[in-house]
């Protein structure tokens, strides 16, 4: 016999007959068996002695690896690469990483299960299974149960095998030849790759062309299209072509007069608080102080910050003797321009509010150092 043989097929009438035949044919010396049935048959895995699928192990390994990678990624970025304090939590707060670890594990496990099953274990793409051109296949997909004795060598005694199957109750037998080139070659892979690229090009250019001809229809443009210039946008109205113009030299915004004094001491001598001491001013000062200053200087001005110790600043105690002695102008200047690690607040707090804060600081200092006269 010139062509190689895939195996000898015997067709049985029921699943029970097939299950009974398997151990008997095994004792007859045929060990390489395959079964084809129209529906899943209970017990056939054990009867054929099929090896346990390795897919579970692979999924577990890849899943664990994904979990570990996600952990390493999160740990490195959060603590080494780009440590960023979020919500007052420690850099290495693992709780927030768990979601990413779980998602990565599930995603990679699913991919491994799907792709691994199709390509690694089922060996797809896979053309021309030898059973497909056989005569038996029509019955197998309908109501017959096939047992295949695979040929273990080139010199299989097909007559003996067919006789053994018939003896066990096989309705009919058939010798199925092997099919050449069952897996695709390099040419097939190249063709497939070219086809995928071509499909992408066609779909992409088609979409671009469609958008060009039929621009996206917007249901409502009222908010998006407005008769004004966007920030940083060009404009031909002005000679320099800019939409945003610089203010004329010497312009001063209302409430933000620049301070001419060069140092806090100079300011202490030159500047006087323009605001009267009224309940309204003190209330405004209290509100602004608690908003901007209290986070470092404390609500009483004691300089004990509410911030974490990792902040490492040592704010000045506004209740200390030098601060009590300092002039209004001194405090105003420091507030505006900043001193040591404290930034200037001139851009954030208006001039009047800064003076109101000075009034409020005075009130705070007096509240912590009251004399008997104040009690009257």
């Amino acid at each position: 016999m010139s062509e190689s043989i895939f195996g000898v097929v015997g067709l049985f009438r029921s699943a029970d007959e097939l299950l009974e035949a398997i151990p008997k044919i095994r004792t007859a010396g045929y060990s390489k068996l395959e079964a084809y049935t129209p529906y899943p048959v209970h017990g056939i895995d054990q009867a054929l002695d099929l090896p346990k699928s390795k897919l579970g192990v692979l999924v577990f390994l890849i899943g664990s690896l994904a979990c570990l990678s996600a952990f390493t990624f999160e740990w490195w970025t959060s603590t080494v690469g780009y440590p960023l304090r979020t919500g007052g939590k420690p850099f290495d707060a693992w709780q927030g990483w768990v979601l990413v670890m779980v998602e990565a594990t599930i995603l990679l496990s699913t991919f491994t299960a799907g792709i691994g099953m199709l390509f690694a274990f089922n060996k797809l793409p896979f053309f021309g299974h030898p059973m497909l051109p056989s005569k038996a296949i029509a019955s197998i997909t309908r109501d017959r149960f096939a047992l295949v004795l695979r040929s273990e060598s080139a010199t299989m005694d097909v007559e003996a095998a067919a006789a053994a199957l018939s003896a066990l109750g096989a309705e009919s037998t058939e010798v199925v030849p092997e099919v050449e080139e069952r897996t695709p070659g390099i040419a097939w892979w190249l063709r497939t790759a070219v086809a995928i690229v071509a499909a992408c090009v066609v779909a992409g250019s088609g979409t671009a062309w469609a958008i060009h001809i039929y621009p996206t229809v917007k249901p409502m443009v009222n908010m998006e299209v407005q008769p004004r210039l966007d920030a940083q946008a060009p404009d031909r109205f002005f000679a320099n072509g800019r939409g945003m113009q610089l203010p004329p030299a010497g312009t001063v915004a209302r409430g933000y007069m620049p301070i001419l004094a060069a140092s806090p001491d100079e300011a202490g001598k030159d500047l006087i608080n323009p605001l009267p001491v009224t309940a309204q001013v003190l209330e405004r000062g209290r509100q602004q102080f608690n908003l901007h200053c209290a986070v470092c200087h404390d609500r009483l001005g004691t300089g004990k910050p509410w911030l974490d110790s990792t902040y490492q600043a040592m704010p000045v105690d506004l209740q200390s003797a030098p601060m009590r002695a300092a002039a209004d102008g001194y405090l105003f200047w420091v507030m505006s321009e900043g001193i040591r690690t404290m930034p200037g607040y001139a851009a954030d707090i208006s001039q009047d509010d800064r003076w109101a804060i000075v009034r409020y600081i005075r009130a705070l200092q007096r509240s912590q150092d009251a004399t008997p006269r104040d009690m009257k």
Partner: protein
Amino acid sequence: MSIDSESVSYAHSSASESMIYRRPGILWALIAVGGAGVVSSYFLEGPERFWANWLVWFVFMVCIALGALFIVALQHITGATWSVPLRRAPERLAALTPWLVPVALIALFSLPVLFSWTQPGASADPAIAMKTSWLNYPFFIARLVICVGLWVLSYRILVAGSVRQDRTKDPQATVRLRRYSPIFMIILALTLTAFAFDWISSLEAGWYSDIFGVYLFAGAVTSGIAATSLLVIYLYRRGWLPGVTEDHLYNLGGLLFGFTIFWGYIAFSQYLLQWYANLPEEVFWFQQRTSGAMEGVFIFLGIGHFFVPFLALISRNDKLNWKRLRWVSVWVIFMEFIDVFWLVSPIEGRGLHLGWPEAAFAIFFLSAGLLIIIRATHMGEDMPVGDPFLGDGLNFHLR
């Protein structure tokens, strides 16, 4: 406290005959010793510790009993046939339900001792003042009576109906049970949530977590499946469940595995949200349970209640192995107890207490619970022989 005299007197198999009163004397002795320890702990160690322990065991008992009832109802509601041969196990475990009545009534006396909302001046706290329409003695007691009453009623309907079917062989009984099961599911969802809020959350009445009822539910079902598996394996090993194979045990292992993941998911969801938001009125609850002596319990809980059963049951071979399933079941029940202990024990100012009173409570409740379950083997056959789907269930094959 058992089903009804008619079904109890009905023929029980020789298998359960040999199981009943195998060592009744030892159990009774243990109950007496444990009971004496329990009572004396009240006088020697003070009422607070006594009531905290009582509450732990009350909640734990609710978890096992309702977990078992849930499995019974789940089987009816899904129409699963594979579990029909095993159904008597959760039905017998559910015999703990009627005994919840005395335990719950006694637990009511813990209200003025343990619960923050019963303390004088509690309503000065605006968070508690807002909840006074829910947290007050009459409504609280009414809720407990309704919850336990509905559980006992559901137990009588679900289990007595099934046991009676052994004799009558009436397929209509299965139809009736399948009709009642969805109703029970709704009752369980509402009552268990109310129970979790009342008996655990309200210990520190300022705290709230919407997911808490689901958390207790997840633990209850996990431990219910574990207890069911233990009972099934006990009968299976002695050959008293003819026709039940490893494939049935595999499904129990699969359910245990699935609900372990569900518990982990719910537990971490609750923890992550409150940890992240870091709101003082919420996070103090976790702070008490993750710091000091409770930190070790917290870590042990995370590893023991999730990772150990997860890794122990992950492979198919593990779930087919009854020895593996047996020790995982014992472990899961133990971890559910640790979970309840972790929830109830660290109420304000109370550290981790482990000593002879805890041991006495464990001896008393474990031996009493075991006696209840052993006596429940009176109930009907070892398999629901009257269920029309028993044959299908016995023919179940995994492979």
